[in-house]
């Protein structure tokens, strides 16, 4: 059924198909007349069978037969025997239709429908399936139906797994069989059937099995797909874990009312809190739901737990997110207040797969409030922040104290929960790494390189969760560089992966991260105060991630990269200033994550491609923009044409925006922006009235 070239039709075939069409048309006309007048006589039902035998795709005819069966079943004189024979007739019609075309959706569906009536024997079904699966071993209709029948018969997963094995031995390029195997194993693992099906026992055997396929024919896709599934099974921990938080455990947070006050506090933990509150960010290892004031308990003197509203940071507006935020009111007294937060002592935080958060953890920090001595004149004069090289100088710790960055020592929240249980995972990964190094020593193989890169990263992440070190990152980067050259068709994908590894590498250790920490101008005289600016510019990044270690960042320079999207950036709740200048953003919808950043004041999106492209490839990021009610504010005709700008910017409290160098940024657009954002002080560097 696969790899057979299509033959051009011969004239005599065409003639035959014309006669067939005529015959069909006559049948169909008659059939519809029966159908519309709800005639379910024997003759009428037989006509539909005839029609289906010629054209199994006639879905209406299948539905008609269902109606006919229901009609018969509702008759008072029907008895179990006649019902059985009626349904057996249905099965026969399906079988002959399948013989005509065994990829007919309608026919397979009808068979399911008949069987689910429960009057027919299921035993014959497997035999029929064997026949079909022999004729076309990869036919997914047959495999789907097989799963249905197996469930109906209560056939054991183990028998079915054995069946996939037989099919794989016949031809290991049968991805349908591999797929079914993964489905069956997942279900067994989920059930934890009979206790011995632990991942750690099962996965090594499956790895061994798939190696046979991959090594025998590395050019075959099926094996690699299955391997990818295994890798995913190996690295994903079932239970959600808290990976990182802001404020970090054991940290001292300084809340200031004004940027100008800086004093001698750590630039990493001094936060402007002009709104009278500050965010608490929980960063999990996977999306979770159920984070609320009942699952996250806050103990502090200045806030009541019940008042906290936890908000998922997800662009899709679903109640599932990897990052959650709540805003805590600043303490009113000048006394230092300590805060203790406990996560997961009740079991309602769950992953979408249904795994519970089962490692309760507690973290605490201290909050120091600086008295507000607001100098109103300074607030009103917004300084123009220029993301120029000369405005930055490398950060050097003022004191001898090391570990100025808070994100690192606090990762120990993750502590030893899973570390012993994860031994088999690291072992499995190490084995895989060795295996694929061997394959690559034998032959050049793109997918082999990609797999090795994935394995090495997974291994690093798994084995050094706290070691602040990625031993293989250089090698992985080299592999992706290599792949970009070898396989230009998938350049973009490799580029993205390369970017993510690069980011991970830079954020993996304090030393490497400090190399990217800068101070803006002479921070004392600057209006923005002294927060550290993390500069990840000029790295040709095409994607960004790894925000769990960057939750503390308030100034971020991502300019001169190749970003098309900034997915995930919503996790950086403290962002005050952001430069995305000179990237490849194509539309305003690409900025969607910014809508979640309530602290953002300074934004540079100059020299992107916004407005260049008629097709918006990041529209998916927007939460159903079309259904979004624009409301009464939008009475200006001009705004209707720029509703995306309105949608994007109206909730942002920007004081400075640079948008020069985008096709969209004409005079009209600028005037619209000024209208949308009354707080805006500077647009493209010009002071607004």
């Amino acid at each position, binding site marked *: 059924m696969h790899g057979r070239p299509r033959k051009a039709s011969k004239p005599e075939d065409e003639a035959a198909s014309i006669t067939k069409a005529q015959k069909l048309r006559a049948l169909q006309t008659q059939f519809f007349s029966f159908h519309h007048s709800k005639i379910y006589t024997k003759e009428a039902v037989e006509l539909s069978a005839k029609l289906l035998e010629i054209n199994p795709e006639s879905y209406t005819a299948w539905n008609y037969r269902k109606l006919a069966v229901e009609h018969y079943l509702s008759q008072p004189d029907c008895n179990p025997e006649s019902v059985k024979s009626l349904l057996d007739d249905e099965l026969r019609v399906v079988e002959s239709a399948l013989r005509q075309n065994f990829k007919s959706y309608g026919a397979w569906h009808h068979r399911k429908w008949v069987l689910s009536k429960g009057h027919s024997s299921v035993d014959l079904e497997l035999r029929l399936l064997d026949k079909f699966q022999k004729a076309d071993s990869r036919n997914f209709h047959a495999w789907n139906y097989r799963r249905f029948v197996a469930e109906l018969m209560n056939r054991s997963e183990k028998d079915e797994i054995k069946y996939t094995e037989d099919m794989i031995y016949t031809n290991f390029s049968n991805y349908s069989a591999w797929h079914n195997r993964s489905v069956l194993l997942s279900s067994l693992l989920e059930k934890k059937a009979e206790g011995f099906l632990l991942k750690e026992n099962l996965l090594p055997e499956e790895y061994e099995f798939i190696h046979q396929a991959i090594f025998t024919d590395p050019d075959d896709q099926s094996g690699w797909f299955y391997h990818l599934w295994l890798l995913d099974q190996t690295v994903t921990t079932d239970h959600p874990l808290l990976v990182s938080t802001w404020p970090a455990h054991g940290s001292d947070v300084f809340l200031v009312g004004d940027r100008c006050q800086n004093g001698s506090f750590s630039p990493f933990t001094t936060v402007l809190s002009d709104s009278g509150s500050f965010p608490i960010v929980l960063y999990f290892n996977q999306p979770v739901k159920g984070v609320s004031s009942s699952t996250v308990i806050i103990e502090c003197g200045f806030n009541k737990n019940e008042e906290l509203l936890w908000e998922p940071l997800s662009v899709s507006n679903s109640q599932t997110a990897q990052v959650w935020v709540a805003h805590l009111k600043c303490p009113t007294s000048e006394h230092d207040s300590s805060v203790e937060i406990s996560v997961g002592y009740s079991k309602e935080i769950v992953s979408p797969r249904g795994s519970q958060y089962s490692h309760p953890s507690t973290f605490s920090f201290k909050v120091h409030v600086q008295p507000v001595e607001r100098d109103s004149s300074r607030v009103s004069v917004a300084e123009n922040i220029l993301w120029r090289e000369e405005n930055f100088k490398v950060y050097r710790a003022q004191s001898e104290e090391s570990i100025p960055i808070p994100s690192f020592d606090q990762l120990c929240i993750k502590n030893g929960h899973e570390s012993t249980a994860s031994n088999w995972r690291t072992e499995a990964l190490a084995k895989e790494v060795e*295996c694929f190094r*061997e394959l690559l020593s034998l032959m050049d193989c793109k997918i082999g390189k990609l797999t090795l890169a994935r394995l090495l990263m997974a291994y690093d992440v798994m084995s050094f969760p706290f070691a602040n070190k990625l031993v293989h990152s250089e090698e992985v980067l080299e592999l992706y560089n290599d792949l970009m050259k070898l396989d230009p068709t998938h350049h973009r994908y490799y580029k993205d992966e390369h970017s993510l590894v690069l980011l991970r590498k830079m954020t993996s250790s304090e030393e490497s991260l400090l190399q990217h920490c800068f101070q803006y101008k002479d921070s004392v005289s600057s209006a923005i105060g002294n927060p550290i600016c993390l500069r990840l510019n000029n790295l040709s990044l095409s994607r960004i991630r790894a925000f769990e270690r960057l939750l503390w960042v308030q100034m971020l320079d991502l300019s001169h990269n190749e970003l098309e999207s900034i997915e995930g950036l919503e996790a950086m709740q403290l962002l005050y200033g952001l430069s995305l200048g000179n990237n490849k953003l194509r539309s305003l919808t690409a900025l969607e994550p910014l809508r979640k950043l309530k602290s953002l004041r300074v934004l540079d999106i100059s020299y992107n491609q916004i407005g260049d492209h008629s097709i918006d490839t990041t529209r998916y990021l927007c939460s159903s923009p079309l259904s979004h009610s624009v409301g009464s504010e939008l009475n200006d005709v001009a705004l209707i044409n720029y509703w995306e700008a309105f949608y994007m910017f109206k909730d942002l409290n920007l004081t400075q925006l640079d948008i020069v160098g985008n096709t969209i940024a004409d005079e009209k657009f600028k005037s619209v922006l000024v209208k949308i954002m009354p707080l805006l002080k500077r647009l493209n560097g010009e002071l607004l009235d």
Partner: protein
Amino acid sequence: MDDIPPYPPIDPTTFDLIVIGTGLPESVIAAAASTASKSVLHLDPNPFYGSHFSSLPLADLPSFLSSHSTSPSPPPPRSASSEEEHRDFSLLGLAARPIYSSIDISSFSPDLIDQFSRKFILDVAGPRVFFCADKSIELILNTGANQYMEFKSIDATFVGDSKGNLLNVPDSRAAIFKDKSLGLMEKNLLMRFFKLVQGHLADEQDVKISDEDLQSPFVDFLNKMGLPPKIKSFILYAIAMADYDQEDTGVSGDLLKTKDGIDRLALYNASIGRFQNASGALLYPIYGQGELSQAFCRRAAVKGCVYVLRMPVTALLVDKDTGCYKGVRLASGQDIFSQKLILDPTFKVTLPSGSSPSPPLQAKLPFCSPKDDRGKVVRGICITKTSLKPDMSNFLVVYPPRSLFPEQVTSIRLLQIASNLAVCPPGMFVLYISSLCNDDDQGKKLIHAVTNTLLTVPPPINSESNAAVQIKTAESGCAVQDETAQSGSTGPSDPGEEKPTLLWSALYSQELTLGQVDFICSTPMPDGKLNYDDLIEAAVKLFKEIYPEDEFFPQTSSENHEDVDDGDGDGDASPET
């Protein structure tokens, strides 16, 4: 043999072609000539078809072998009568050449064997099989001979070692995947090599094997591809079926070239999956290989060939002046004339005693006997009650050179056939073993090395005491066995597995001859190869030489060719579903 009934005279007395012997090459030529509208008389002194390609009941095998083992002084042709003299013919006597030697037939369970002796149908020239895509199968399908035969698939090929292990030969993508004994690297190397060959054969530009490589020895090419010894051995001996040690050039000049090696791989590859119900690459005919000759005889008979069995030919009639062949004199005394003659290789031409040949005849005499090929082939037939491989019936085992003992320079091949091929009673197995050899002693050693490795050989109870068989004393038999047992005993076989016990065995060496076209046209003896292709090729060559104007089985003769190949062919070639 039984008493020969009185000969009825043959009518007509003149034919285009007389063929003596119903072995495979003779039968193919008879069928081809009949198809080309020649009148053909096909004679055989035996009461059965197939001569040295036949399958015989166990009871008849010893006498057949022994009747060809000695060279009894031929009864001189009846002295020329005056009547014949004036017809200007000389008589040349036809004598049997000794073909088989060192015949050793031993029964270790005489009662059991006697009870079933008619139920065993043993191939004289075993082991021999078809590749599903070889020329012989092509010929069978083209000529319609498949109407008279049924085939079954040989389930697997193994490579044996001196410890009695049988390693599966990973001969296809699925088999490589499934194989348990190959390492991952080996799987990768082997599959890549197969792909290279496939790409080369499919004429893909980037995977062409260079001409230089094609002309180099295959083993060098395999080395160049970095294949480990185990895989090399699989490819050379169990897939390309090389006969001689390819790595020790001192022993044999018979090195397979890469080009030929690739062709053999291509044949093997094309054979797998050619017929839907044949799982492996190899086929075996139900009722034994004798069916093949018989099928071609039937094909010939349909086209008008006249068959007379049990009819020895005593002499050739030769023109006195020119020395040219004119006809044959039958044992019945009848003279039959023909333009052409094809002779079974077991005859040699002798001069009538006491008469001096005419000068033209004398010049031709050196060409009167079939040419000997170098060396011999040794064959063994064993009967057991248990399969060598539990749960498997029909399979091939190859012992590559040096796999059993260091001096082994040839491949030894063993074919196990079970009762589902209708050649033995249920629950019994026939093993055919053969190898090329230089002389009988070497041959014996080769066969015994295999039997000692795989079978429990009880002390012989009874050796067939046929006058013609060299009765071997128990001592000499043991001596040979001990010698090889020692070399093979380095690794004792798994004590947990009981080796099958030998019930009956036959061992014999066979002369090799090539076909020739000369004063006398004679066909080749069964060769040492695994399939029939070389023999068929020799037959085609002979046919073309004697009938250069005629086509060998023109297409018109099989109007149903397409059907047979695509549709019916599947069912016929491997009929059991």
